[in-house]
Each structure stands twice: as structure tokens, then as C-alpha cells.
């Protein structure tokens, strides 16, 4: 058996199938996977990159697919000037999104805690109905909202928008946070009660800290929903309470779409998302997986 010649490379059928099992097969699928991920990322990032570049181009350069151009910050100035006045819209969006989150998370947390820890009458029904409200197409309920808001004098106000956004984000927030609270062992809470805590102290000292990743996740999620909300803002505002997504529409002028300005505004809309994502990436992943694994 010391024969040094190369063995014949003729695989039998069984050997050939062997070839495709085990490590080799695994490595093959891994590379396919990697390629697909890169591809998906590319598809998702291309428009963003395009917008990013366009926001630094002049109106003329936008339509030239050149990688090299003299970048200008002019667009970022223009969008804040008359007639676009993006500053006011940025202010509206910020207020609406923050206040929505500030109200939604505490209320949703209380609701989620009750759903998770107390057995209520018609509990499942209520939970399903809460979620079901989200399956109603927004266009269907915009008209009643419009009429109601007109009668209440809430049209074109930030308070009105905040209320609408609360209605949008609360169901998601409740369901999400309930998932996290469900994951906190009952033992831990009971131990705290025996140790001398009232129910409120249990929530403050035990539940909230343990659910923190979940609360952060839910907050971001709600913020994004409120920040990007378009349809209701389109119908329920026209001047004073206009938000950023609606503001984008301003750049469709008679002279055509002002892509360079649109892009700058787009980047301004996206910027907080990127900053948020970076700042709390760790929490977010932890939160997402915690909710999922449970």
C-alpha cells in the first residue's frame, strides 16, 4: 500500500453523493448564503447611496451617474429656506414622534403588564381585537377621522397627529412589551413581593429593569412608526402641523422633481434612524431575540 501514484479520480455514484455531504456541502451553502446577503444588502443600500450622493449634487449633476463630482452643501441650506421651510416640519415630526413614544410606552407597559400577569375576563378577545385594529386599512378610517378632527378643531394640529400616532403604535407596543414581560419568571416577582415590595415596587425595581431591552426596542419601533407616518399626516394636516414625510412632497414642483433637494430632505429624515440604530444596536438585537426565543 505504499504505491505513490495518484489514485484514479473516478467517483462512484455513492462517493459522488458523499462528496456533497458533510463539511463540503456546509461550506457550499455558507458561501451561497454570504452571496445572497451581500446581494440583498446591495439592493437595499443602492437607493440610499444614490440619495446620499444626490443630496450633495447640484440640480444639473443629479441626472449624471457620475461617481466624481464637486460635492456641495447647498441643498441642505436650501431645504430650510422659503418656500420649503423644512425646519418647521422637522420640528413637528420631532415633537410628534417623541411625545407619541413618551405616552405610548408607559401606557403600553401598564397594559402589557396587566395582560401578562392578571387573568382578565375576555383577555384573549381583547388582545386579538387590539391587534385586529391594525388590520383595518388606514384609508378606510381616514374620512371619519377627518370629520371628527374637524369638529373637534384638531385638524392641522400636532396634538391631533399625536393622538393618531398613539392609536397606530399602541397595539404594537402592547404586544411587543407583553412578550418581554411574559419572559420574566413569575418566581422573580414573587420573591420580590415576599421580600417586602408592593406591586408598584415590584414593577419599578424588578419588571422595568428586566424588561429594559424590550422597552427600548418597543420605543424605537414606535418612534420609527410615528416618524415615518405618512397617510394620516397627509390628510389631517395642511400648514401648521405638516411633518417631514409630507414635506417631501413639496419638492415636486412645476419644473419637475427637484431630486437634489428631495435627497437632502430624505437624508434628514433617515438620519435619526441611523443614529438610533447605531446607538442602541446592542439593545435592539438583545430585545429582538429575547422576544423571539421566549
Amino acid at each position, binding site marked *: 500500500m505504499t504505491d505513490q501514484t495518484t489514485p484514479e479520480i473516478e467517483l462512484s455514484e455513492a462517493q459522488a453523493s458523499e462528496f456533497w455531504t458533510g463539511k463540503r456541502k456546509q461550506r457550499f451553502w455558507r458561501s451561497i448564503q454570504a452571496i445572497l446577503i451581500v446581494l440583498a444588502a446591495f439592493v437595499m443600500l443602492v437607493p440610499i447611496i444614490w440619495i446620499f450622493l444626490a443630496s450633495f449634487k447640484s440640480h444639473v449633476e443629479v441626472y449624471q451617474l457620475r461617481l466624481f463630482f464637486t460635492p456641495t452643501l447647498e441643498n441642505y441650506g436650501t431645504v430650510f429656506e422659503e418656500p420649503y421651510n423644512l425646519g418647521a416640519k422637522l420640528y413637528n415630526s420631532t415633537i410628534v414622534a417623541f411625545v407619541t413614544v413618551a405616552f405610548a410606552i408607559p401606557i403600553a407597559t401598564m397594559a402589557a403588564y396587566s395582560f401578562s400577569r392578571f387573568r382578565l375576563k375576555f383577555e384573549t378577545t381583547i388582545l386579538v381585537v387590539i391587534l385586529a385594529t391594525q388590520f383595518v386599512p388606514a384609508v378606510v378610517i381616514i374620512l371619519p377621522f377627518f370629520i371628527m378632527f374637524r369638529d373637534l378643531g384638531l385638524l392641522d394640529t400636532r396634538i391631533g397627529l399625536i393622538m393618531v400616532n398613539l392609536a397606530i403604535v399602541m397595539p404594537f407596543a402592547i404586544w411587543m412589551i407583553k412578550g418581554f414581560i411574559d419572559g420574566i*419568571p413569575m*418566581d422573580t416577582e*414573587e420573591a420580590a*413581593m*415576599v*421580600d417586602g415590595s408592593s406591586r408598584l415596587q415590584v414593577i419599578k*425595581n424588578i419588571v422595568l429593569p428586566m424588561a429594559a431591552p424590550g422597552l427600548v426596542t418597543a420605543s424605537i419601533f414606535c418612534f420609527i412608526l410615528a416618524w415615518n407616518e405618512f397617510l394620516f399626516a397627509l390628510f389631517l394636516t395642511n400648514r401648521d402641523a405638516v411633518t417631514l414625510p409630507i414635506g417631501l412632497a413639496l419638492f415636486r414642483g412645476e419644473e419637475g422633481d427637484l431630486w437634489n433637494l428631495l435627497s437632502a430632505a430624505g437624508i434628514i429624515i433617515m438620519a435619526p434612524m441611523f443614529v438610533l440604530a447605531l446607538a442602541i444596536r446592542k439593545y435592539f438585537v438583545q430585545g429582538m431575540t429575547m422576544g423571539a426565543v421566549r
Partner: protein
Amino acid sequence: MAEIRLKNLTKRWGDFIGVDDQSLDIHDEEFLVLLGPSGCGKTTTMRMIAGLEDPTAGEIWIGDRMVNDDLPKDRDVAMVFQNYGLYPHMTIYDNIAYPLKVRGTPKADIKPRVERAAEQVELTEFLHRKPKALSGGQRQRVALARAIVRTPKVFLMDEPLSNLDAKLRVTMRAELKHLSRALQITTVYVTHDQIEAMTLADRVAVMRHGIIQQLGTPDDIYNDPANMFVAGFIGSPAMNLINGSVQSGMFITTGGTKLVGIGGPDRESAILGVRADDMSVHDAGEGDIDVTIYAFENTGESTLLTVQWGKQRVIARGDRHLRKEQDDVVGIKLNPDHLYLFDPESGDRIRMGGA
């Protein structure tokens, strides 16, 4: 410092009865063990004492106060949970300090008391860690330290050792015993492990299907079981229960062997209980009965002989130097002072005349 009195305590979920109309007085400073198989209502009983479960009926008294309507925090008890119930987001120090902090103990008092409790369970070097970074035994000691950092009226412990490996369990058992003697606080301890019950308890309450079968000292329940369930549950190996009848004062096995004189009236059917330790092994012909060895086991500290006894198999304990083979014939002698007779229908103990 308090006694606990349970008066006609019942817990029902729909039709299912968890604890069935039980009354129990636990003395001040007593270490009482609730012992029974899984699902017999031990935890439920304990949770009702802690206030984590509302009784369906009955009263719970701690000291001279009926606590039925008190919240857990107002009952002044400390509990060790089966899964420890530690606070994963707090350090060990904060875990142990929590009962003090939440009850508004002055800041200056907290540190020395936490450190003393940690010292008592040998956790001092881990105080800055989080529970996740501790082993099972260490976590168990954190739960214990959190309980002893205060001086509550009552300790409640729900199978605190059951998540530990066998060796650690023996060590921790001794530590628990030492600690409880030092602290002298009324303790209710739940376990399904009869050795824990025997070694730790001042008194044991043996439970089954939500009913206390017998309440007594470890000696009582071992040597004077109230019924067949207690007899079979306590002791390792389990007590041998032999089917037969009583005729003119003799116990006769179902197989027809005249076994031993026990006195009393004739009975068509009866069950004789005898522990492995109360049977002595002799050469063939020298015992009450000759039997064939079905299996011979050497455990090191003694030998166990499973012998074929008519249609039944019975376990006898032999001297640790005894050496026998399967299928050997030996003589077995029963210790007449430690025989128990039970009614096969009800399982109740039949007290033998004279014994």
C-alpha cells in the same frame, strides 16, 4: 418568633383539589418539613402561607394574627424558591440587600448586615457578581442569604436543594441544619426527598393528594407509620409490603408459607410491612424462612439482597461483609418488634395486639 396555625385550609381550582381541608399547628422555632410525592400540594400549602396563593377556604395564622387578607409583604416571612427567584439584573450584594432596602432599613445598617449574611453562607468574595456568573450551589446560597439577612417571623423553603447535584445536596443539607439551629426561626420546608425530611425536621408532615397523612417526629414516621403510604414512602429501600392473611395469630403469605407470629384476630387478607433493616440474613434453614436470592447488591456500606418470596420479591439488608451469589438459598429472620400490619383495602395501619 412565631407559630403558624393552619385551620381547615383548602385550595381548589375548579373541581381540582390541591389542598383538602387541612389543619396544622407549627410551633414557634420549629423546623417543620412538608414531605410528599410531586403534586401532593406541598408548594400550594407553602404559597398560601406566603400569601402568593389565596386559600379557597380556611384560615392562616402567623403569631396571633390572621393573615388571610395580608399581602405577602406584610406577612413578615422570607422564602427560598425552588428556582431561587434571584434578581438577575442586580449584583449579589444588591440581591441580598433588597429585602432590607425595600423595607426602608437605614443605609448604614444595610452594609454590615449584608456582609454578615454573605459570610454565613460563604459568599463574601462573590458580592459584586451577577447571579448569571454563579454556579447552582452558589445561587442557592444567595437565595439563602437573602432570606436570612432579615430576621423574619417565618422561613419558607420550597425544595431549596432539589436543583443541586447529589454531593452538593448533602453538604448544603448540613449547612442548612446548622444555620437553622443557629437562627432558631420557625421554618416550613418543602421536599419530596425523605432523607432531607428525616435529617432536617423537628417534625414531618407527610402529604398525599392534598391531605396530611401523618404528622410526627422523624422517629415517629419512620418507626410508627400511620398507614401504608407513609410506610412505603419513608425509608430507603422502601418498606417491604407482603400480601397474606392472619390465621390463629400467624401471618401466612399468599403463597401459604407460615411466616411469623403476630397475634391478634384472624384476617382473610392483610399486608405485612417489614423494613430491609429489620430482616437478618442467615444460612439456609436457620431463619424463619428459606428463600432464593434473586439479586445480590453490594453498596459498600451494606449489602442488599433481593429475594424471591413466593410470588413477591423482598429486599433484605445484609452485613457489608456478606457475600452471596444469585440463586443461593439463605434463611431470613424477621425482627418481631418491628413488624407492621396494614389493611389492604384502606391502607390503614392495623395495630397489633400487644405490640
